[in-house]
């Protein structure tokens, strides 16, 4: 059963001719409350090296549950959260678990054989399929009603500058990894560079015209005609730039703190800058899909700002019997939860432009990881923590699922956008169809 989402579509369904349209559209009884489809959005956030199950997963199932230490920062959004325990990445094949963990996470399909040797297993290459965020992006971009300037934006935070299986999560297709942009200034240029360029240009055009006047004096009458013609174009350009600036007056550009280097200790600042840009790009409707990748699979951030001096990956190999390491890993994941909370807070405090409610009412954040646990390297119980009401999932719940292949969750994300795919990634893991989360 298709939903009728607009008044015009409703009228079309009634089979009325165009001649009656102006008349019918003026009938107050046919005025739909929401003229346009709501702008649904998805943000997928990645953090590496698994979690500490004891301090991460709520004990309870259902709507009554308690957030443990790792997830505590998300307390304000508890009734807008959906915590999925029991989702497993079942994809096997070439590559070690870290490689498959990130490479199959959003693709749900095996890696190609290749030349990248992991810590164990056979060497592998890139994923052999598209990732779900790109699949949904393509679906949205195919429809003029949901098409946006970029479709999707791929953010990163301190992603090492090398392209290999451990550093890429998003795939535009088989063998087509998409690099995340982890430099906020580069992302700023991508989003607003054109606007900035034109502003800089506008600021010098007066001088250009002055100069033109001066040089025109010095040429012969016959040659002056060419310069006058040229001056006309410059005036035209100035008017275009002015019209441009007026049209954009409502869209304030985000201000970035200048000169933040991409280095370990700036991770918290870069994280915020990227999230601010992300929220801003949603306000301007540049994209409906975003990913945010913290470091990489096997990431080695040293979170000195929360008193952790060891590298993250190194710590994650420690057994859970190591109290100190477990405590630090919990703090690390708590820090990531704080980032999710910041993002959720920014979205919740930003009104939906031209719509009702806030951005968080129309956005789903999915926070995930390449592993269930860092020490065992298991791909079972891969964390999926969701915040926000973008996809009509029933929120405010903690679910304990029974070893569900994560492909079914990926399908549920697509279905949440009305993209009713029957399989995604390796079809062997799609039995039962999309997870029902509504």
């Amino acid at each position, binding site marked *: 059963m298709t939903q009728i989402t607009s008044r015009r579509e409703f009228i079309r369904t009634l089979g009325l001719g165009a001649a009656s349209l102006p008349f019918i559209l003026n009938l107050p009884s046919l005025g739909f409350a929401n003229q346009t489809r709501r702008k649904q959005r998805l943000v997928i956030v990645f953090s590496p090296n698994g979690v500490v199950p004891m301090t991460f997963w709520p004990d309870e199932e259902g709507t009554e549950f308690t957030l443990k230490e790792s997830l505590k920062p998300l307390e304000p959004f508890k009734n807008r959260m959906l915590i999925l325990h029991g989702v497993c990445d079942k994809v096997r094949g070439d590559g070690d678990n870290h490689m498959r963990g990130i490479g199959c996470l959003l693709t749900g399909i095996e890696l*190609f054989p290749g030349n990248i040797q992991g810590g164990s297993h056979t060497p592998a290459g890139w994923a052999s399929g598209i990732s779900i965020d790109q699949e949904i992006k393509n679906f949205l971009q195919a429809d003029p009603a949901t098409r946006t300037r970029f479709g999707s934006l791929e953010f990163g935070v301190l992603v090492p500058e090398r392209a290999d299986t451990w550093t890429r999560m998003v795939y535009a297709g088989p063998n087509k990894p998409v690099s995340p942009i982890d430099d906020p200034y580069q992302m700023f240029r991508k989003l607003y560079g054109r606007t900035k360029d034109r502003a800089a240009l506008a600021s010098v055009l007066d001088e250009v015209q002055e100069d033109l006047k001066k040089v025109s004096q010095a040429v012969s009458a*016959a040659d002056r005609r060419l310069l006058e013609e040229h001056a006309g*174009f410059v005036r035209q350009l100035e008017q275009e730039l002015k019209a441009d600036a007026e049209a954009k007056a409502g869209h304030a550009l985000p201000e970035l703190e200048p000169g933040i280097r991409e*280095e370990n200790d700036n991770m918290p600042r870069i994280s915020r800058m990227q999230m601010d840009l992300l929220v801003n790009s949603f306000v301007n409707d540049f994209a409906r899909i975003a990913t945010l990748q913290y470091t990489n699979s096997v990431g080695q951030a040293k979170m000195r700002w929360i008193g952790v001096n060891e590298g993250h990956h190194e710590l994650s190999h420690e057994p859970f019997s190591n109290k100190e390491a477990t405590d630090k890993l919990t703090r690390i994941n708590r820090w990531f939860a704080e980032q999710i909370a910041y993002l959720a807070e920014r979205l919740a405090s930003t009104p939906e432009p031209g719509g009702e409610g806030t951005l968080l009412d129309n956005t789903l954040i999915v926070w995930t990881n390449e592993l269930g646990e860092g020490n065992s390297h298991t791909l079972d119980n891969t964390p999926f923590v969701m915040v926000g009401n973008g996809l009509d999932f029933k929120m405010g719940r903690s679910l304990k699922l029974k070893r569900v292949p994560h492909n079914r969750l990926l399908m549920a994300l697509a279905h949440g956008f009305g993209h009713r795919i029957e399989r995604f990634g390796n079809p062997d893991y799609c039995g039962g169809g999309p997870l029902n989360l509504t």
Partner: protein
Amino acid sequence: MSDRKSFQSPERLGKPLSMLCLFLAATAVSLSEPVSACAAAQKDGAKIYQASCAKCHGDQGQGTKKYARTLEGDLAVPELTDLIAKTMPEDSPGSLSREEAEAVARYIHDRFYSAVARERNRPARIELARLTVRQTRQVLADLVGTFRGTFKPPQERGLQAAYYSGRRMDRRALALERLDPQVDFDFGTAAPVAEKIEPHEFSIRWNGSVLATDTGEHEFVVRTEHACRLWVNDLKQPLIDAWVKSGNETEYRGSIYLLAGRCYPLRLEFSKSKQGVDDSQKQKEKPPSAPASIRLLWRKPGRVVEVIPQRHLVPAQGPEVFVCSTPFPPDDRSLGWERGTTVSKEWDDATTEAAIQTANYVADHLDELAGVRQVDRRPRPPSGDPAAISFDNKQPSAPNPERVQKLRDFARRFAERAFRRPLSSEWAALVDRQFEGEADPDLAVKRVVLLTLKSPRFWFREIGGENDGYDVAARLSFALWDSLPDAELLRAAGAGELHDPNHLRAQAERMIRDLRATAKLREFLLHWTRADHGLDVSKDPMRFPGFDAAVIADLRTSLELFLDDVLSSDKSDYRRFLLEERVWLNERLAKFYGLALPEGSSGFVPVPMDAEHRAGVLTHPYLMTSFAHAKESSPIHRGVFLARGILGVSLRPPAEAIAPLPADLHPTLTTRERVVLQTQPAQCMSCHGIINPLGFTLEHFDAVGRYRQEDNGKPVDASGSYRTRSGKLVEVRGARQLADFLVKSDEAHAAFIEQMFHHLIQQPVRAYGPETLAELQKSFAAGDFDIRRLAVEIAVRAAPRGHSELGKDKQGG
């Protein structure tokens, strides 16, 4: 049947050629000297006019005391004929026959009555001109390039190769260094250096530059079963990154816009090994060796994929080149050469885009260009080992205190170099003003770049100048390089040396040896031979099996190699273009033309090919193919090329577009006979009387440039003739006799010189005085027809002269 079809649907075969008159129309809007020998009918017109009309209208239609109005208007010849027939001469209207009236009408229309004739008769002057598109790209490359130092490529060709055992390309693993002429290797399962490298695991790095000879999008292709990455121009960002080997792909492609006549840094890496975690210690025995090959190929604009030939590879590396790839509308070529004497909204928009592209490039490379000490911002792992990544990168974030000053200096020098003269105090203040009260000095630089690159002082030649040494320097460098004066030339300008003809000539002689000068002359030669039309030269595959895109591309290369060979030879003798008996062939061409290459040769080599019949560009198979239809030769296209291109005869476009007679409608006729049949009407013969007898002399060469004795079963008749402007009829038979005539022909020399002048200077040669062409002709002959010397001669003659009315106007008011 299929024959007819090919003419009915010209898109099928030989598209631009099957409608031969379209071709004429597209290239023939000419304002230069009116038709000379073409106008047998006009002679009568002239006689009648002078006898019956001039006494009132003046001998040039300028009017007389009796009748002051000048004879000009916009009636077409038929209407004008009517008018004359009915009303003229005033004292006895109707006394002229219809034919006489038409002859007069045609004569005055062509001489002075029509708008085109009036435009032509206007005294030529040096006009104010903006940078042409070609100049724009060259200038921007050099403007940014001057901040990076110069690179003199060595004569040697090929790439520096380093072969390493194992996966790491460091000194300890280095097994062999050598010069590889090109990258086209199949190692099989063996090691490239048998005694030093294990066959199952090795890596190779090639370093050097790639020399582009065309401007446009170049596609690079690497073929290998293993990991590879390729950098072109930008050595930080790979153009092709297949360092992760994944799946079954064995071919990788990447495109980049390159400018002709420049070297671009290039690096290629190959790895037959695993990346990531090194587990070789764990392995008990060596794994079997898989087959390995690697090839570096490219596709030049409009050509086919080929292994990058040795002549395009240079075993040394210069700095990155800034390439402005902003699309521009094409320049005005209505006079037969590119010139920048018009502007349009599209052009102005393109200048804005180019300014923004350049400003962003400068911003992205600012510290390097401004000479600020750079710090590597990014942590870089020493290898692919994921555990080795370190985030311990505690470099200070504090801004360099001297940086702002350096950026200011940079901004001033940028404007100065862009304007080709020392910065006026006003402009220096304007630059400084961008920095004042601006917290972000990078933004200030960007503003200066935009301001500079939107300024008329940048886009227009010699504007704001004083016709001083700097203007002379700029004229010289635009003439020979299409670009900015270099440091040495600016120094000479500043020292006042360029007003001394000897110094000026010495500079030109220095500059003519630069790659950019070679590129510009090469482009001229391609224009002179009309090889720059981009015509579709594909042929009927049934008639010419094996004549495919690869053969066509090779033929084109063959022509270019010939032109390059003459151009780069010591004497660079023009006469070789007409007399050369050899043709450059590679294996594929030799096979197609049924020839054998000398033992042990590889790539293209010059070989005698029907040597007693060949005559340089006149019979080069690429041109014979270009000036031909899908199945048959085209004496008309060849004749137009000879008349217009080689002899400088102006031809009017035909009155209407006419398709050639299909061969199968006249199965017993030769090509020559069909052409004669079709062009016999009198209105055709005024031009075809010149075109045909020239084109017929090349009838021994078929539509793919093969020598033939027979056409359609009859012996080829290659006799032809040409009436010189002094009225002498020259009869020739075949290409060699034609070449022997042309090589001594004053008209051919003048045509070559005039075309080169226009290509180099982009102003009408007549604006430099009536004697200029004749003097250049004299010096060309006296200098043994050395084309580089001719280019120098043209450049030094034109350089002292600015646009002509500059001074007059100032005096006038």
